[in-house]
């Protein structure tokens, strides 16, 4: 297969200015005293993206994934190395495509068309499709500076996909806009895949990458750390995420001490471990059991102890939370080293990385110690169900003539 995008030894450095003179006057006054440090955002990236594939670029914030996409789009120029692209390319970076705020939606559509190398007649041909897709019929002659951010994004996406690009670069934009529009975008992206166009998506949502992409690549601190099959890349990505989330030796008390409570330190969390059902795997499958073992240390006897646990999803939602008090449990007097085990016999979650927050506090809520999302666990679903929770479901085909929904 021919490569649609070749990234060859791409390195991108930014200048981090200490104090940057931005006017001629300042420049002259402090001549030669501009201090900056190089920051390597991308370090010797090599990857080929085959024509017709959908590739997901994974990485957490600051990993360089968006910078890489911008280099592919030609917006940032490499410090060394190069990017070669074949075919018309449309890019959707952050919020919408490039629009001129003073101009109307209509003028911007034509402007964008000509930026992408289309002639006026070619834009004429797809103009109605663009406006229809963006659902902006009434506002198309309004200057885009009056558009809401949703309208802006809709128009940007509509232009990008209707100008017949061979390569589409998308940066997280699918996560904005209302649900109906999101669905429409995903449908369109699927259609693009079916037509054999090349798509590069940047995301930190591993699940979306797993669902949509044929290939994936993970970036960390500007380096390409995994590239290939999405499932393997996602595993690698999550492992690294887990490692990086591990606190340095004495970082957690340092961090937590900031939320000083009068009871602080009378009971300490010394460890928290996630124990999966299958010791050989580092993930739990839906329906399997999982334990969280929390080690506590109380230098002096304390009789007023509640241990709490909360599970957060990757987007920061609270998925579940409970504590010993809610479960009517009295821990009695704690002295010295003790462990508390939270036993989850049936984890009803689907694919994803979940974070655990653990706290120890008095019955009245004064905190002894807390670990905010310092532990994570993985759920790896073998099935193809999507979403957050595994809802028990059975499906049947009803007899002809039986309309189960209305028969009652």
């Amino acid at each position, binding site marked *: 297969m021919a490569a649609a995008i070749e990234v060859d030894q791409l390195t991108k450095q930014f200048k981090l200015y200490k104090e940057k003179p931005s006017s001629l006057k300042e420049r002259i006054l402090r001549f030669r005293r501009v201090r900056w440090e190089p920051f390597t955002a991308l370090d010797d990236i090599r990857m080929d993206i085959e024509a017709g594939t959908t590739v997901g670029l994974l990485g957490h914030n600051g990993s360089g994934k968006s910078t890489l996409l911008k280099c592919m789009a030609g917006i940032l*120029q490499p410090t060394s190395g190069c*990017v070669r*692209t074949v075919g018309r390319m449309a890019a959707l970076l952050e919020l919408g495509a490039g629009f001129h705020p003073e*101009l109307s939606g209509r003028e911007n559509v034509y402007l964008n068309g000509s930026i992408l190398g289309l002639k006026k007649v070619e834009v004429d041909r797809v103009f109605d499709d663009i406006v229809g897709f963006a659902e902006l019929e009434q506002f198309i002659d309004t200057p885009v500076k009056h558009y809401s951010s949703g309208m802006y994004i809709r128009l940007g996406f509509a232009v990008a996909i209707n100008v017949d690009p061979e390569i589409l670069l998308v940066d997280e934009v699918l996560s904005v806009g209302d649900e109906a529009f999101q669905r429409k975008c995903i449908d369109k992206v699927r259609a693009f895949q079916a037509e054999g166009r090349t798509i590069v998506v940047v995301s930190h949502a591993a699940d979306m990458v797993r669902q949509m992409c044929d290939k994936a690549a993970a970036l960390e601190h500007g380096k390409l750390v995994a590239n290939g099959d999405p499932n393997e890349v996602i595993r690698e990505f999550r492992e690294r995420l887990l490692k990086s989330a591990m606190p340095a030796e004495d970082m957690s008390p340092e961090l937590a001490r900031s939320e000083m409570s009068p009871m602080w330190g009378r009971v300490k969390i010394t460890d928290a471990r996630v124990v999966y059902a299958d010791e050989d795997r580092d993930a739990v499958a839906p329906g399997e059991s999982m334990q969280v073992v929390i080690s506590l240390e109380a230098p002096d006897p304390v009789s007023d102890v509640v241990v709490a646990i909360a599970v957060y999803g990757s987007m920061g939602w609270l998925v579940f939370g409970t504590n010993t008090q809610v479960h009517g449990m009295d821990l009695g007097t704690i002295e010295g080293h003790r462990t508390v085990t939270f036993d989850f016999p049936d984890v009803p979650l689907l694919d994803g990385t979940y974070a655990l927050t653990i706290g120890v506090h008095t019955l009245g809520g004064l905190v002894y110690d807390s670990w905010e999302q310092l532990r994570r666990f993985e759920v790896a679903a073998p099935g193809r169900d999507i979403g957050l929770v595994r809802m028990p479901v059975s499906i049947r085909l009803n007899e002809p003539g039986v309309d189960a929904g209305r028969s009652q």
Partner: protein
Amino acid sequence: MAEIAAPGRTFTHRTTMVGQIREIAAHHELLLNLVRLELKAKYKASALGFAWSLLNPAMYLVVFYIAFDVILGGGIPRFPIYLLSGLLVWNFFTAALNSGTGSVVAGSGLVKKVWFPREILPLASVGAALVHFFLQLLVLIGALVLLRHPVGWAELPLLPLALADLILLAAGLALLFSVANVYLRDMAHFVELALLAWFWVTPIVYPFTQLNKALRGHSIIALANPVTPLVLTFQRALYGEFGKPPVMPPNLHFTWYLRNLALVTVAVFVLLAIALRVFGRLEGNLAEEL
């Protein structure tokens, strides 16, 4: 898979001048579009709309006419014709440089989001200024026809060359200033100030002979200003050999103007080459700096 002739592109830190020019040429549709949009955006929210593009120079004309001809008594016959044939050149030059200097910063919304040869932005400002130039030229031609003014027929054929030089000079400077303005945001003020001084050392409201006299005949100093030969050519061709004694130096003819233009042409190409080189070097970081 069959290799189809798809538009391929390589992004590196190296740019070649030929590559730059090729990309600019490939985006001529975008250039025209931006010129149209710049003209449109400029007058969109104004009541008089496009008329402003003529009102502004008309006002200049009236003010200078009153100040120099009526009050100071400059003694140049048909002063408005004389003035306009030089002012035409200058108006284009200032309009192109003023809007060109800010063009990349103004277009940051595009620069940060999509790739296209960024040279297009200052060039579009030059293009928009050119449209105004032709409008003003039409007004002047109308006046010439109405007054049956004796133009300098011999020097008329030099106008296309002078205009080409003028466009390239403005393009080169606009390229340099626009990219400098990204790094040093007060570039625009500097350009405005420099243009003010530049205007008064160029023989537009006063005749070249006067300037020459002030320079004690060292016309070479006056001609080192690249706008001067261009202005002189326009004045000689449009205002002609008018007045007694003639306002334009009577002993200078076609070959003298041609020689000046040839020198300007050489200078302008050197400038353009430098400007493209500098722009090419700096354009890679524009998206970061904006």
